[in-house]
């Protein structure tokens, strides 16, 4: 067996080196390139998404503010165009706006004192007390109140301490100072516990400030809307105006009520200070509140001069990217493992088959043909060159073994044959010598046979005489048996006659029974007659007494008749029984008679057969006698033949000695052949198979 190869030189090692290492390098390069590109693309697209989403949210809030402004301007326009002073109609309009605009928290109109000249009339039909302010001034404020009927309540407007006159005084002063009558959106403040922002427009009648109309929007509504946008965006949103938080989708730690809080007091101050107040912009910086790296996007809401800031942590991007990277890596690793396993399986199978082929070749070279690798070769299912090589090796091994085995078997048989030949020639010599002695013994035996034949002839003549006597006596027996058979036949006829007579008796007895029944019926009638006669006699009274006696005697007579007929019936029945028993007996006797007759006839037939046999035996005995005479002549002929055989034996002993010498030479040649075959080893099973196949060995 050769020394084992180093791993890097073996089939397996080299396939690993040239197949697996390049594959791993290529996969790693692809994964890395993909990862970098994915990172860049994803980050850019997320930034774009954030920017456009923020712009969208700002636009949506702007549109809502714009809608409110339009509504207030419409209210002012309605007042200026003829509704001013028609208080009931104005109230109806306010109520209608409240009902149809769910975003509005409150709607109100405030007139200058006695601006319409109706302050003095006070509460009238359609204008309740609650709609009036000081001195009958028209000052209604509709607000939502879940406790009120219909969810809406009206009350007079009131100044609040911290509103700084935002909703009345500021628009008034602004108009009088600069004749501006635009809508004013106030900063957020608390109006009787509700955080609101107000949109106010002055009413101008004939160039003079006559009052205001306005709508309140609750910050809770803005907040709810903002939270919804934030959820859709997956980020936090803050709304700011004039240095204050308006609303936020989340609460900052330690600042549970962010709304209306001064930004200067918030931890988010640096962000808002550095963010420009115009346009859309994205910054990446550390959140001062959580210490996390975040994207901050800011945009402006023109209507109301608001600003919107969106915050999204950068880790949201990284999270997606790392997931992608891990998936790529897993796929790559799985691919490498599959390649390595397939290569390893291929190389291991091939190297095993080549190894097996190599070992077989070495064994054959060393002269060992005993091991059988056909089982291992059959287990190999693959169809490649290594498997073909292995199969060829197995076939060669088997063929060589068969050839060597055949030669060996042939030489063995030759050797055995030569030994046998030598032994045979010696044995034959001995036999020839013994044969001479035997012929003398045979001659003596033949003489004895001829003496015995003469004795047998006498015995046969004696037996013939006895047989003739037996035949005579058998003929006599047959005559007496014939006589006996005739007697039996006559007896049978007599028995049949007796049976017939008994049957006649039985028929007569049946007739007697009929007669007896008739007698019994007559007796019965007589009895009945006697009873009726007695009844008649009884009816006849004294005159019938004698008749009564007679009837009684008749009845007695009838009774006796009945009794007698019963007796007769019984006797006849017994007689019938006896007769039928007799008939049965006679029948049985007849059957026995018949069987006796048959037996006698059979014995007669048998005797006739015996007599015939005896006659035939007499003829046979004569033939035996003739045979015996012939035998005597035959014995003499045998004697002369034996003498000639003894002469032949002496001649053959000379040729046997020559035959022995040839056998010895054959044995010598066989020994040389055996030496040549001996260097091959064969398996035991193979040896047996070939030994039985002598034809193959001969070829």
């Amino acid at each position, binding site marked *: 067996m050769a020394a084992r190869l180093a791993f890097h030189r073996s089939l397996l090692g080299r396939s690993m080196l040239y197949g697996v290492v390049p594959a791993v390098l290529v996969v790693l390069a692809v994964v890395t390139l993909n990862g970098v590109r994915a990172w860049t693309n994803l980050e850019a697209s997320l930034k774009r998404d954030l920017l456009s989403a923020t712009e969208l949210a700002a636009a949506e809030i702007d549109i809502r503010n714009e809608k409110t402004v339009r509504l207030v301007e419409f209210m002012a326009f309605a007042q200026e165009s003829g509704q001013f002073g028609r208080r009931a109609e104005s109230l109806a309009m306010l109520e209608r706006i409240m009902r149809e605009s769910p975003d509005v928290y409150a709607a109100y109109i405030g007139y200058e004192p006695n601006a319409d000249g109706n302050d003095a009339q006070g509460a009238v039909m359609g204008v309740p007390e609650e709609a009036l302010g000081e001195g009958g001034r028209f000052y209604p404020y509709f607000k939502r109140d879940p406790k009120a009927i219909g969810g809406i309540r009206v009350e007079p407007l009131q100044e609040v301490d911290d509103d700084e006159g935002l909703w009345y005084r500021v628009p008034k002063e602004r108009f009088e100072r600069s004749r501006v009558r635009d809508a004013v959106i106030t900063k957020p403040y608390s109006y009787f516990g509700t955080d609101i922002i107000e949109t106010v427009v002055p009413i101008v009648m004939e160039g003079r400030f006559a009052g205001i109309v306005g709508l309140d929007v609750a910050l809770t509504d803005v907040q709810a809307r903002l939270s919804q946008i934030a959820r859709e965006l997956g980020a936090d949103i803050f709304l700011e105006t004039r240095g204050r938080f308006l609303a936020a989708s989340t609460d900052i730690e330690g600042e549970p009520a962010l709304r209306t809080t001064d930004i200067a007091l918030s931890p988010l101050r640096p962000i808002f200070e550095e963010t420009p107040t115009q346009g859309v912009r994205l910054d990446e910086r550390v959140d001062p509140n959580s210490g996390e790296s975040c994207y901050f996007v800011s945009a402006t809401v023109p209507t109301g001069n608001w600003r919107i800031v969106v915050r999204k942590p950068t880790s949201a991007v990284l999270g997606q990217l790392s997931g992608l990277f891990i998936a790529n890596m897993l796929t790559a690793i799985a691919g490498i493992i599959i390649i390595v396993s397939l290569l390893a399986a291929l190389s291991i199978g091939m190297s095993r088959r080549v190894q097996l082929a190599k070992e077989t070749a070495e064994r054959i070279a060393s002269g060992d043909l005993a091991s059988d690798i056909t089982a291992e070769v059959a287990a190999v299912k693959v169809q490649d060159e290594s498997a073909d090589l292995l199969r060829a090796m197995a076939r060669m091994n088997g063929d060589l073994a068969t050839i060597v085995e055949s030669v060996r078997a042939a030489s063995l048989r030759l050797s055995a044959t030569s030994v046998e030949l030598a032994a045979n020639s010696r044995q034959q010599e001995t036999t020839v010598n013994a044969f001479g002695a035997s012929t003398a013994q045979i001659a003596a035996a033949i003489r004895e046979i001829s003496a015995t034949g003469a004795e047998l002839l006498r015995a046969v003549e004696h037996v013939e005489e006895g047989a003739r006597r037996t035949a005579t006596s058998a003929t006599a027996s047959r005559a007496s048996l014939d006589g006996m058979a005739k007697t039996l036949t006559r007896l049978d006829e007599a028995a049949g006659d007796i049976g017939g007579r008994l049957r006649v008796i039985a028929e007569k007895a049946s007739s007697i029974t009929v007669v007896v029944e008739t007698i019994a019926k007559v007796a019965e009638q007589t009895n009945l007659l006697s009873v009726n006669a007695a*009844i008649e006699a009884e009816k006849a009274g004294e005159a019938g007494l004698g008749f009564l006696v007679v009837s009684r005697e008749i009845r007695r007579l009838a009774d006796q008749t009945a009794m007698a007929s019963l007796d007769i019936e019984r006797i006849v029945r017994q007689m019938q029984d006896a007769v039928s028993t007799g008939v049965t007996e006679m029948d049985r006797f007849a059957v026995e008679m018949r069987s006796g007759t048959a037996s006698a006839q059979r014995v007669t037939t048998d005797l006739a057969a015996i007599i015939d046999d005896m006659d035939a035996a007499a003829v046979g005995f004569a033939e035996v006698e003739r045979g015996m005479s012939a035998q005597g002549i035959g014995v003499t002929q045998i004697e002369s033949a034996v003498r000639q055989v003894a002469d032949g034996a002496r001649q053959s002993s000379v040729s046997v000695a020559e035959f022995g010498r040839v056998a010895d030479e054959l044995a010598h040649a066989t020994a040389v052949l055996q030496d040549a075959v001996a260097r091959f080893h064969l398996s035991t099973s193979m040896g047996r198979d070939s030994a039985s196949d002598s034809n193959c060995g001969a070829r």
Partner: protein
Amino acid sequence: MQVLLVPIAGHRYALDAREVVEVLPMVEYRKAGTGPAWLLGLANLRGKLTPLVDLSIIVERTPTARTLGARIVVLRLENDLFAVRPDESRCIGLVVPEVTRLAQVDFDQESSHEGFAFFGAPHLGPTALDHEGMVQLLRCRRLLEGDDALRELPTRMDV
């Protein structure tokens, strides 16, 4: 008195001989069909259609066996059960298993029993002892002459 001895189911009964017209062997008859079990049907007795009544069913509640010894005892009754008009006199056939003979029995002796009329069985007359044992007189008139007793008798064998 002179009576006709009639054994039924091992019991000896007696019929007044003066009421008996005659004794006849059993004949073929036309069955009554529906009706009480004791009413067997109509038979032609000496050219006259006569109703047949099974006495065994009435006194022992078991039908008479159809043997050779079975007899019809013909009675003449006045105003009987089958009469259409009052005072009509006609015959009736009592079917019995056997008629023994005519005998003289005294039912007025001290050892006699007066019968079961008191217990709602008026046809069971007095019982007397003679040398063969007890013999009970059957009052056929009470049994059949329009008395309610017979009407109340069972009409079905299984009652």
